[in-house]
Structures are given as structure tokens and as C-alpha cells.
């Protein structure tokens, strides 16, 4: 996972509340064998509507999402995070997130920041007045800035630390890499090795 400190990208005003994970990615896309390439699946049903915000030219490269309350509710599918990430989103802001979605996001490097409904409304208006406007996310200062609007956001400290350090579950384990290497150095020579492959008698 890459370290996340600050990021600037096109802000997307998604004026919807209760965006559940079935909306973020419908179940039909869960049969795939990859963990990437879900960009076409993101908001798949809504994207059939030419007027949907991500179908508008100004937002095609959108990467910072501002949504209504209760974002990411419903099914626990991790694919919802993969779809947002694959489309290019680096951060999502809402006044309220579903817990599981937030947890999944943290594991995949997607920032989920909580800002007030009043701040969301101000940012929506700014973005709508000037489509394609960029938003700057500062995870160190815990602020998001759009034009002259600067909002403080909340994120739990453990997740923030992991994002700043670029640590996923594997990354955390690899902090103990020296212990793993030390263990391997003592590993007895009789223990199994698959390579080089040995033929049967």
C-alpha cells in the first residue's frame, strides 16, 4: 500500500444518501477472478443513465468523492472498495459511513473522512458551480480543501497511522520482517522445499 499524506484531484459531488454497497457494485460483478479491473462495475446501474455524474465529462477523472450520509451500507463485499479504488478514487467524504465499509477501505488504502453535512453541502455547491474543481486531501492535517472551503475531517487514529505509513495487513506483518528472516535462518534443513522439484522414484 502506498503511503498517503496529501492528495489533490477532481472532486465529485454525489448528492445521494444511503449509497449501499449493492449500488456501489452489483452482485453480478462478484464472480470475477481479479482484485482489480472493477472500474466498469462502479455504480454500474446508475451509470446506465447518461446524466449520472460520473458520465459527465468534467467528472470522468474524479478521484475525491463527496457523498450524502450513510455511505457504504449493506453487504460487506470488499469489491465495493476495489471498484471505487479502480475507478480512481483516493478518498471519500461523508457525514456517516457504514463500519464494515470503512474497515474495508482502510485495508485498501482508500481514505474515508467524516465531515459535517453543512461542510458537505458547501463543497457540493462549490463543485457544482465549477465542475472539475479539485479537492486537496491532507491526511497529516486532517483537512480537505475545495477552493476557499477548508473542512476538518475525522478518521480513526489507527487507520490514519496505517494510511500514513502505507501499511496494510501484510505491511504490518512485514514490520516484523527481521523476525521472519531470523526465523528462516534457523529453519532446519530437513523441512520441506518444493524447489527444486524432485521427480518420483
Amino acid at each position, binding site marked *: 500500500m502506498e503511503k498517503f499524506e496529501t492528495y489533490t484531484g477532481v472532486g465529485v459531488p454525489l448528492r445521494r444518501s444511503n449509497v449501499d454497497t449493492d449500488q456501489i457494485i452489483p452482485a453480478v460483478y462478484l464472480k470475477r*477472478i481479479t482484485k482489480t479491473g472493477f472500474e466498469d462495475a462502479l455504480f454500474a446501474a446508475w451509470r446506465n443513465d447518461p446524466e449520472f455524474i460520473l458520465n459527465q465529462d468534467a467528472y470522468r477523472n474524479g478521484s475525491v468523492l463527496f457523498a450524502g450520509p450513510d455511505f457504504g451500507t449493506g453487504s460487506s463485499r470488499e469489491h465495493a472498495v476495489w471498484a471505487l479504488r479502480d475507478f480512481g478514487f483516493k478518498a471519500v467524504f461523508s457525514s456517516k459511513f457504514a463500519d464494515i465499509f470503512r474497515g474495508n477501505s482502510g485495508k485498501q488504502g482508500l481514505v474515508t473522512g467524516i465531515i459535517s453535512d453543512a461542510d458537505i453541502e458547501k463543497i457540493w455547491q462549490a463543485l457544482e458551480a465549477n465542475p472539475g474543481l479539485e479537492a486537496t486531501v491532507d491526511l497529516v492535517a486532517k483537512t480537505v480543501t475545495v477552493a476557499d472551503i477548508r473542512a476538518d475531517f475525522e478518521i480513526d487514529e489507527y487507520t490514519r497511522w496505517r494510511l500514513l505509513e502505507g501499511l496494510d*495487513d*501484510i505491511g504490518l506483518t512485514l514490520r516484523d520482517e527481521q523476525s521472519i528472516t531470523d526465523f*528462516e535462518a534457523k529453519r532446519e534443513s530437513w523441512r520441506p522445499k518444493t524447489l527444486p522439484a524432485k521427480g518420483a522414484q
Partner: protein
Amino acid sequence: MSSAPLTLAEKVWNDHLVVKGENGSPDLLYIDLHLVHEVTSPQAFDGLRLAGRPVRRPDLTIATEDHNTPTVDIDKPIADITSRTQIEALRKNAAEFGIRIHSLGDVDQGIVHVVGPQLGLTMPGITVVCGDSHTSTHGAFGALAMGIGTSEVEHVLATQTLPLKAFKTMAINVEGILRPGVTAKDIILAVIAKIGTGGGQGYVLEYRGSAIRALSMEARMTICNMSIEAGARAGMVAPDQITFDYLKGRPHAPEGADWDAAVEYWKTLPTDDGARFDAEVFLDANTLDPFVTWGTNPGQGVSLLDVVPNPADFADPNDKAAAERALEYMDLTPGTKMKDIRVDTVFLGSCTNSRIEDLRAAASIIKGKTKAEGVRMMVVPGSARVRLQAESEGLDQVFKDFGAEWRFAGCSMCLGMNPDQLAPGERAASTSNRNFEGRQGKGSRTHLVSPLVAAATAIRGTLSSPADLEEGN
């Protein structure tokens, strides 16, 4: 430091501790052997690619194709697109990450849990993981072996370790001598019926006692294989001379001084006298009958000499309701003799019962006999090598003469990811491990049985044991 008496499982755990977890966080354990197959690995490899991580120890990793592989026409392209995609993804991933793979058509291809032991990679005192719940099979060697999820597969590929929470231990004591016609499969089905499908949850099981000591390695694998059906993530048998004899000379078994050092260590592994188990279960091998399931979970089993139970006789309301649902799905009436249940198909295969001893046992029963009219029998060896071995012994001819289908290796009808499925409403006597609704095909009905019962059933057309043949019934 005084050493307290330890169980087998605790010893293996302690010897793989990389980082001891503190304040309730999990321990980090080293993984000696990682087995990979096509179904649960693609997203794990994709995760590595995404993070730019290599596989830490390709030399402790091995892949084989089993769940999706066809058991006929293996030289032709796989018809099902999803299956073909998964297999092609595994081949591509193995090539990209430098992992040894045994593909369809390769002499070492087969069910992942048959291939590991056959190559001599599975050995006592090691940790084994695989993205498959039946990884418990390898515990038969005195290894700590468990199934893991796809995110854990990625974790092991990247770090060769796994964070694990401590477990409890349960001793399954099986004392006595099995009667003729009674096998390891009957022991484990009886154990699961006794403790229930959730009885082993949170535990590592250790199968102990004179009846277990007397079993061959392949029989021990059958027992450990179904630990997961009792809810346990792992099951183990202490290594002994039978284990060492089975291993010695296998392609990847230690050699020379390594062998001697290994054996010396392996001999220290059995549970110490005075070690405490968190739970104990006792089963009398002397009185055990062939065991079969009547319902839709592996705990719903009875003696073959018994009858279909009456849901009204279950005290627990959940068990009662489950029995009612199961009987409706299975289309069975309480009080029906198990031996009167007629089957359409007999499946001999799966990681539970597809090894050479299983095939020999079944062949010894059907040799020179006639298959019951209308019954289909499918024999699917666990690996390409098992198939070759059986052919060198002429077993394939015995099966073919009997009218059974002699197939190529794979998981096959155990879970029907390939075309080997039951039709809706079809009933099977199956040597596999799960009798869930729809497991062997939509609407399929499964009775779990031993290879001996499978063979006798194929002859008589109803659930039977070899003893029923002798009586001339």
C-alpha cells in the same frame, strides 16, 4: 525453565512462533508449506501484483489444478469458461511468480491434499496451509495443517507467515479394534455424529488411541480430512513408525543426515504424558458399525444397520427442525432401514477417499461381481499418480469390467465445479465429505459412505456393506 507437559499441537505451534502476540493480538506463525489451487488464489496473486510484492518463498509453495478440472477428455480445452479462466489464471500466476505448478496432464497433478503427501512434502512437525478447508488432511502426519481464506493466501504468499489466535485442544480417543468392513471413514463419521458439526469449533483435534495407532497413513488422512466437518480447523495424529515408513524415500522426504535429524525431532512430537486437553471425547472402536449419513450435514449420520431417525425423537428443537428439513430434502421417511435406501450413483473419489488404498478396497469388493442395474458408478482417483498406480495393479480393469467409469484425477463430483454432477433429485452414495443441499449438483441427495460401503452399494443398489454380500442377500 521447567517444561510443562505439552500436546502435539502445542509443540508444533511453539516451534513456529515468529512473534508472540501481546495484549490479545494474534501470534505470528511461520508456514512451512503453502499449497495453492485455482479457485481461491487468483485474487491473492492479484493483490500481490497490485502492491508490487513478490512471493516471499516460492520454494515453500506448490500449485496444482484440481477443483475445476474435467475428468474426461483432459487433452481438450475446458468447455466451461469460468473454469477455464480460473485455471489459465493459475498457470499465468505460477509462471509470473515462479511457483511450481502441476497442471492437468502432468504426472503429479491431482487433488492438492493427495499431491502434497504423495510427493513427501507433507511431513511431521510442519505447518501447512492452503486456501481449502480440507487442508486438515495433512494433520495425519502430525503437521499443523489448516484451511485459510483468500486474503490469508495473499498474506502467506507475501510473508510466509500467518497471524493466528491461539486454539484449544480436544483429544478424540478411539480405543479398540475395528471389525472387518469398518474403516477410518466410519470412525470419523461416528465422531462427527457424536460431537456435531460445531463440536470442534475453536479446537485442534488430536486423534488418539489404539484404533488410530493401528491405522495406515492413508486411513489417518481420511480421518483428519473431515476434522473440518466437525467444525475444527485442524486435526492431528502423532507421528510414529507408520508415518516414518510412509514418508521414507518419497521424492521430497529428507535424506541422509537430514532424515536422521528429522526422525529424532519427530519422535519428540507426540503429546507428553500428563499434558492437558481442553476437552476429551471417547469412541469405542470395538462396537463400531459402518456409518452412513441420512441428512444434509455430515453430523446427521447413523450406523448402516440403523433406520432413518424420526425428527420427533430429537430433544433439541434446532436439531429437530434440521432433521425435518433434511428428511424432506432427502425424500426419506423416518423408520426406513438405511439398507433399503436405493441410490442412483456411487461416487468413489475426493480428498477424503481417493487414494490407492481406497481404490484397492473398493476393487476387492466388486471384483467378479455385477453392478446393480440402473446404478452409475464413477471412480475418480485423487491424483494422476494414484491413477497410474491403480492401472499398474489392474484395478482400472476391475472397475471397467464392473461397469464403472474410470476417470482422470480431480475433485470432481465431491463439489461438482466441473461437469461431474448429480441431476436434480438424484441420490448418491459418495465417499466424499459433504452432504450439503445441492453440493453435488442442484437438488442432489448425498449419503456419505466409506469406499467399502460404496462398493457394496454399487453391487446391491441399496446402501450396503460387504457383509451384506456374504449373506447372499
